[in-house]
């Protein structure tokens, strides 16, 4: 375990209500790391190709089980919201120009029969939400520094997506952005060397 990971876990132990769950944390973390380095099958090829075309900062793979695991306080509303999600891939990609993001969005429509559900293009924020067959979604979100790309397979109550994104950052959920960060970097470097 690296120092960074201990810090993340330690932060969670600061909450008394969560201490009794501490024994399970290592299990959670191991599973999350295993998931993080195991590519999901049968999902958008174009989405997967992003990891070859760009330098990924963060690369996370979630399944129904792992999505439930990060819900440390076992919020029933959250579990209800994610119960029909089969898989979710999350990439954080180093700076990508806006015109490239627009081009990526078009590629999903032209090459993989996705339909545009929503788009916002502006100085402060740019994002695209695309859907296919009512059970696959791609979201491309440009932040100040990075591009967040999400590929979701399964069903989610569409009006609850903002709640899901907020949940991933909330204190009562495991900070998946920190967990296994160093391991993922090492794995990536190993892959590059090979």
């Amino acid at each position, binding site marked *: 375990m690296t120092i960074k990971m201990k810090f993340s876990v330690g932060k969670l132990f600061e909450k008394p209500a969560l201490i009794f769950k501490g024994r399970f944390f290592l299990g959670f973390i191991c599973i999350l790391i295993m998931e993080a380095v195991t590519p999901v099958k049968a999902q958008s090829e174009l989405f997967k190709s992003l990891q070859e075309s760009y330098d990924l900062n963060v690369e996370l793979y979630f399944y129904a089980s792992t999505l439930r695991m990060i819900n440390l306080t076992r919020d029933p509303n959250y579990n209800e919201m994610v119960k029909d999600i089969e898989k979710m891939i999350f990439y954080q990609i180093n700076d990508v120009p806006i015109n490239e993001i627009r081009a990526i969005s078009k590629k999903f429509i032209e090459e993989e029969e996705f*339909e*545009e*559900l*929503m*788009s*916002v*293009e*502006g*100085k*402060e924020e740019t994002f695209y*939400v695309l*859907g296919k067959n*009512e059970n696959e979604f791609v979201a491309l979100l440009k932040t100040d520094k990075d591009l967040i790309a999400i590929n979701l397979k399964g069903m989610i*109550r*569409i*009006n609850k997506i903002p709640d899901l994104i907020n949940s991933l950052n909330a204190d009562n959920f495991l900070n998946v952005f920190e967990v296994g960060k160093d391991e993922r970097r090492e794995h990536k470097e190993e892959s590059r060397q090979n």
Partner: protein
Amino acid sequence: MKKIVISVAVLLICVPVFAQDDVISKYFSSYLDDENFTKVSVTSRMFSLFTDIETGDEDEQEFLEAISKLKGLKVISGDSIEDGMSKYKDALNTVNGKGYDELMSVRDGNQNFEFMIKEKGGVITELLMIAGGKDQFHLMTLYGEIDLKKITKLASKMKIDALDHLRKLDRDDRHDDN
């Protein structure tokens, strides 16, 4: 599945009443590459995803029903631009005589708001808002089957502040009822 796709295609061809006006489409296209403006587009596909959602909350259910009848939303918005007022006047001239009925005009500080609707067979099929000020210009079109009484609730959920002005309609309506 094939049958469903064909049925949907036929429906789309046979129900042009909800299609967005061509003039407005062209107007939006002309701003597409202008980086001074934020462009928002929500498609009918997105709204249709709200159709099958069921919730125990009566208020939320009402909101979801209203939203599932919409066919599209487009917004162009610029708040630090030059000639906002001339863009506002130009937009008003463009839609003039294109079948829109004036619903409400608001003068709020340095900004002018114009709300217009298109109606077919007693159903509001489009709500158009044009707003302009010295350095601001906003154009919004919401199309589909629109229930004006629910539109303010919808606007607050969708965080479209400018549509707050439509609350005045709600108050006037209640006044008339009394």
